[in-house]
């Protein structure tokens, strides 16, 4: 039997060893989620992270919107959005957009692969506590779904001015949102720490 302290209210509780698949244990006092049971967590996370990587590349290589008015056209990729803010002298804002829409999702995918690929083959990657903590931290700053809402608002704003042509990157972007959200919920933290425990025991 092991104990768990609720991370939101600090209540000490016993861990129940077996909870049904796809269910979660919640704190008896404040209702926060304590832990989940995700079957095939490692396989799921790897599969979704690889899919995410492909979609991420598509979302960044192709233009997501083209704007056409009286014969003249401009198109924009994700990175050129941040770049045009930088060129206007708003480097802080450009940095923020870059981190939340390009840096954070990419780091999330790479860290997932870095942590779970070795685990899949029975090995423990170096610096796994640091990598896992970084993954947690970075997920909070991944805002691609908010960016998507921004695209929708811009579409409505611009349709009166000109012709807007959605690009391939837009659809990749929608896919990326779905895949990354699923990947984040497929991660079973307890599983990672148990592997670390086993490894510490061996030494």
């Amino acid at each position, binding site marked *: 039997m092991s104990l768990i302290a609720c991370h939101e209210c600090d*209540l*000490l509780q016993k861990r129940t060893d077996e909870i049904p698949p796809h269910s979660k244990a919640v704190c008896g006092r*404040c209702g926060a989620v304590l832990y989940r049971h995700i079957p095939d967590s490692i396989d799921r996370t790897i599969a979704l992270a690889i899919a995410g990587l492909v979609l991420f590349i598509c979302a960044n290589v192709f233009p997501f919107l083209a704007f056409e008015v009286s014969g003249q056209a*401009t198109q924009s990729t994700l990175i050129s959005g941040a*770049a045009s803010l930088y060129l206007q002298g*708003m480097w802080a804002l450009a940095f923020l957009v870059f981190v939340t*829409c390009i840096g954070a999702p990419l780091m999330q995918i790479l860290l997932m692969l870095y942590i779970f690929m070795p685990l899949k083959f029975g090995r423990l990657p170096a610096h796994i506590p640091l990598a896992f903590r970084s993954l947690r931290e970075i997920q909070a700053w991944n805002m691609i779904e908010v960016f998507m809402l921004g695209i929708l608002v811009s579409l409505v704003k611009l349709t009166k001015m000109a012709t807007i042509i959605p690009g391939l990157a837009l659809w990749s972007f929608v896919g990326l949102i779905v895949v990354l959200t699923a990947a984040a919920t497929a991660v079973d933290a307890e599983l990672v720490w148990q592997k670390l425990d086993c490894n510490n025991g061996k030494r």
Partner: protein
Amino acid sequence: MASAKQASRISALNAGMIGCHSCDLVVNAKDDFHHHLQCPRCGANLHSRKLNSVARTWALIIAALVFYVPANVLPITTVVSLGKEQSDTIMSGVIYFMQSGSWAIALVIFVASVFVPLMKILILVFLLVSVQRNIQWRPREQAKLYRLTEIVGKWSMVDVYVVTILVALVNLGVIADIDAGPAALYFAAVVVLTMLAARTFDPRLIWDSKEEVE
């Protein structure tokens, strides 16, 4: 949903233990509570409560409130169209959408840019006062309010992204050109500061004073 069985209603702190914030291992800290403890499993520094949570959260909220003013007063975009130049603030953008009949978009921008940041600040102020004054009102609802501030926080960024997209796309010189205004930066600062404030606040403080009451 399975509810974890409870040993008894006691917090880790009162039991002389610390739950590792990184790997959830519960560590016995009775002997040396005041030393710098490290988690034996993952090596993270152990803290029973986030350090100086109340003071830090206050500082971030006050900073956010200061930036909230220029974010709403200064123009967020400047549109140049066939020689005419027009500056828009966040509110004038909302009003423009309402007048042009796009009610849904007006609502999205108003909620995300005006309502949510202010609501987040007010909720955090309430939680801080509640912790400092030992207010006993429904801790479970307070915990829910806290979770709400964590979830909705990032959606305020939507206006910053709209500006980014418009600036990148509409770049045709005299015919049509959109520049980002100073409010965009202040507004982004409000969003980031309130997100940091929500992460700095320690929800365990809500429950610390309620242990005996239950």
